[in-house]
C-alpha cells in the first residue's frame, strides 16, 4: 500500500503528527454513529479536513464502522474524490468535459502542466499547487472552465488560465 506519511506543511495538518491526526479524527467521528452507510461521508470529512486521507485515519475509520481496513482502502481508491497523498494548498482543477474539450481544454491542460512542472494529479514539491483534471463541472456553456480553489473561471484561454495562478503568487 503506497501511502505517503503526513508531510509537514500539508494543508491543515500543520505539524503532521500522528497525535494531531488522532485528535482531529476523534472530532470528526463524534458526528457519526458508526454505521456502514456512513463510511463515504466520513471519508469525505477526512478528505476535506486534511486534504487527503492519511493511512492512520483509514485504520481508525475501519475500527469505527466495524469493517476491515482493506474495505476502507478499497473505497478510498475507488472514488476519485479521495487522495491518499497530501495535496497542495491551492487546488487547480481543469475541466476535460466534452464542451471544454472541443473548445480547447487540452491546450490549457498541457500549458498548465508545463507552467507548474507537474502532470495531471501531481503536486508541486513545495506543496503550493495540485493540478487535477475533472470530468465535468457542468459549466459547459462557458467552456473552457478552470476552477481554482472552488472558484469557477469560465471562457478561459491558456494565457488567462496561467494568469490565475500568477495572481496567487
Amino acid at each position, binding site marked *: 500500500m503506497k501511502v505517503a506519511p503526513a508531510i509537514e506543511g500539508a494543508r491543515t495538518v500543520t505539524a503532521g503528527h500522528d497525535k494531531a491526526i488522532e485528535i482531529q479524527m476523534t472530532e470528526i467521528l463524534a458526528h457519526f454513529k458508526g454505521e456502514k452507510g456512513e463510511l*463515504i461521508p466520513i471519508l*469525505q470529512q477526512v478528505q476535506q479536513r486534511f486534504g487527503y486521507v492519511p493511512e492512520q485515519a483509514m485504520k481508525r475509520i475501519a475500527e469505527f464502522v466495524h469493517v476491515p481496513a482493506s474495505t476502507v482502502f478499497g473505497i478510498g481508491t475507488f472514488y476519485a474524490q*479521495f487522495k491518499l497523498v497530501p495535496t497542495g494548498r491551492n487546488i487547480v482543477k481543469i475541466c*476535460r468535459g466534452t464542451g471544454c474539450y*472541443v473548445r480547447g481544454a487540452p491546450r490549457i491542460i*498541457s500549458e498548465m502542466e508545463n507552467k507548474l512542472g507537474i502532470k495531471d494529479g501531481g503536486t508541486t514539491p513545495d506543496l503550493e499547487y495540485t493540478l487535477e483534471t475533472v470530468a465535468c463541472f457542468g*459549466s*459547459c*456553456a462557458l467552456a473552457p472552465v478552470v476552477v481554482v480553489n472552488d472558484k469557477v473561471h*469560465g471562457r478561459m484561454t491558456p494565457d488567462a488560465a496561467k494568469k490565475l495562478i500568477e495572481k496567487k503568487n
Partner: protein
Amino acid sequence: MSFEEIKREAASQWQAMHNSSRPRILIGTATCGMAAGAEDILQALGKELEKNNIKADIMQVGCIGLCYAEPLIEVTKPGKPSVFYGNLTPELVAEIVRDWLVGDNPRPDLAMGTRGEGTLEGIPKLFELPVLKPQIRIVLRNCGNIDPANIHQYIVNGGYEGFIKALKMKPQEVIDEMKKSGLRGRGGAGFPTGTKWQFCHDAPGTIKYIVCNADEGDPGAFMDRAVMEGDPHAVLEGMLIGAYAIGASEGYVYIRAEYPLAIKRLIVALKQMEEYGLLGDNILGSGFNFHIKIKEGAGAFVCGEETALMASIEGNRGMPRSRPPFPAQSGLWGKPTNINNVETWANVSAILQKSASWFASYGTEKSKGTKTFSLVGKVVRTGLIEVPMGISLREIIYGIGGGIPGGKKYKATQTGGPSGGCLPTSFLDSPVDYESLAAAGSIVGSGGMVVMDETTCMVDVARYFLNFTQSESCGKCVMCRLGTKQMLDILEEITHGKGRPGDIELLLEVGDAIKNGSLCALGGTAPNPVLTTIRYFRDEYEAHINEKRCPALACRALVSYYIISEKCQGCGICAKACASEAIKGGKRMVHVIDQSKCIKCGTCFDVCPAKFSAVAISSGVPVKAPAEPVPVGGKA
C-alpha cells in the same frame, strides 16, 4: 400554519414585491453566472446604486438558460416591463444604472429584450427572440424567475399544489395519472415513469425507498445542476408525490460533490420544507411520513447507474450488479426502491400541478412532454434549453443556438454523452425524440448536446469518450474493463498516425463484444461513440489510417504548422510567443518554423494577427515553405 395560510402569506409577499415603488434587479448567480463574473457585477451594482442614491431590491436567481449572455441581469422599474441586459461588465452596469434607473433611457443598444406587460421602443420581447421562441418551459418553469432560496416564491407560482392534489387522490390514482402523462425517465433510458412506480408500488414490503439520481456525470451536461440550483423545490415536490404514490417513507438525493451550490440549495430547501410541515412525520396532517437525506457522491461516473448508486449509498464501492432483481423488488438494503432522475422528478411536480393531459399535449406520440438539453460546443448561443420532444435538430442548432460560430461548417452533434453517438448533417432535419435518436445509433441520454464543426476530428472525439469510459469503468466485467482499454489503444494509435489496415473492423468487433458482455449501461453503451462515428464518418478513420492525415487538422501527431511566405509580414509576434523557440526570422523577414523543434502547440496560429493570417496547418502533405527566413516580398 395550514398550507392555505402559507399560500396567502406567500401571495401577499409576492404582491408586495411586485407593487413595490423600488426598482427590482434580478441577477443570475447559478454556477455558470458566477463563472462568467456575476460576483463582480453584483458588487458593481451595489456600488453604483449607492453612488446614485437609489434604493433597489436585488434578488439572486437561478439560470434562465442564456448562458452565452452571462453575466445577465433583469431590471424592473415600477410600471415598466422588465429589461434584460447580458454580457455585462462593471462599466456597463454603471451606464445602465445611470441611464435607466436615474434617467429614463432603457438603452436599447445594450438591452437583450423585455418581459412583462408593455413595450419599450427599440427593444424586442425577450421570449420572441429566436433563442427562446421555440422553447417550452416545464422543467425550467421557475429557473431564473424566482429566488431559489425562498420557498414562498415557489409556492406562489403553483408550488406544492401538485402534492396537495396528490394527497387527495389514492396512490394508485397518482400512478395512473403518471401513466396517462406518458412521462418517460429523463435520466437517459426513457423507461415509462408510471410503469416504474407501479412495479415498486406493487412490490411486497412495508419499507420502501425513493431515490433522486442527481449524479449528473455525463461530461457536457448540466441540466440537472441548473434545475437544482434554480428551483430545488420542483424536484423535492416531485419526490414527495412519488413517495406518496409508492408508499415510501424515506428518500435520498444522491448528488455529485462537484455541485456544491446545488447541494447548498437543496439543504436550504429541505429545511424550509420541514419548517412548513411539508417534510417529516404526518405531513400537513395527512398521516403520510417522508424524510429526505442528501448523499454526496465521491466522484465515480458509474454511480449514475442505479445499482451502483445504491451500493454507494450503502457505503460500498459503486459497482453495478446484475438485474434481476430490479431495484423495484430489491434495492437499497434489500428493500423495494424507486430511482428517478432530477429532471423526471421536476416533471412529476409539474404534471400534478397542471394535469397529465396538459403534459401529454406536448411532444410526439411516443415521447411526451419536453426535454432539457445543455447546448454547448461549437455553437453561437450556448446554454440550457427546454424544447418539446420531436423538434428538429436544425431548429435547435440554427434556430435556438444561432448556428456555428466563425462561419465554420457544421459537422456533427453529440448527444447522450459517453453513452451516445454523433449525429451527422443528414440527421439535421429528423425529430429529436427517443425513437429517432435510437434509430440513428445514439440516445437522448440525460441531455448533453455538444455541437461540433469542421475543426473537430471525429476519430479524436471517439478517442476522447473511450478515454473517459475506460478510466471510469469499475472493472467488474472483463469485456468493459479490458475491451475499452483495447479500443482506446487502437484509437490512440490511429490518431497518432500508427493505425493499421483492419483497425476499423477490429474496433467494430471489440465494440460488439463489450456491448454484449457488460452488466450495466456504462459498458453496454461505451462503444457507441466509436460505432456511430465509424458509421457516419468512416472516411475520417480511413484518412487517418491509410493516408496518415487528419482531415479536421486536429490530431497533433498528424499536422504541421507552417508560415505562408506570401502572407508573412515579418512582424515577429509568433517568434516571440513560441515557447519552444522553433520560429526563426528577423525584422521584415518571412518567418520559418523549424519542424524538428515545433511541438505543435498552436500558439503561433493564435497570435498571428488576423489581418495577416500567415500561419497555416497542414496534414498529410509536405509543408510548402522555405527552409530559411527570406525577406518579406519574396526577393532575396
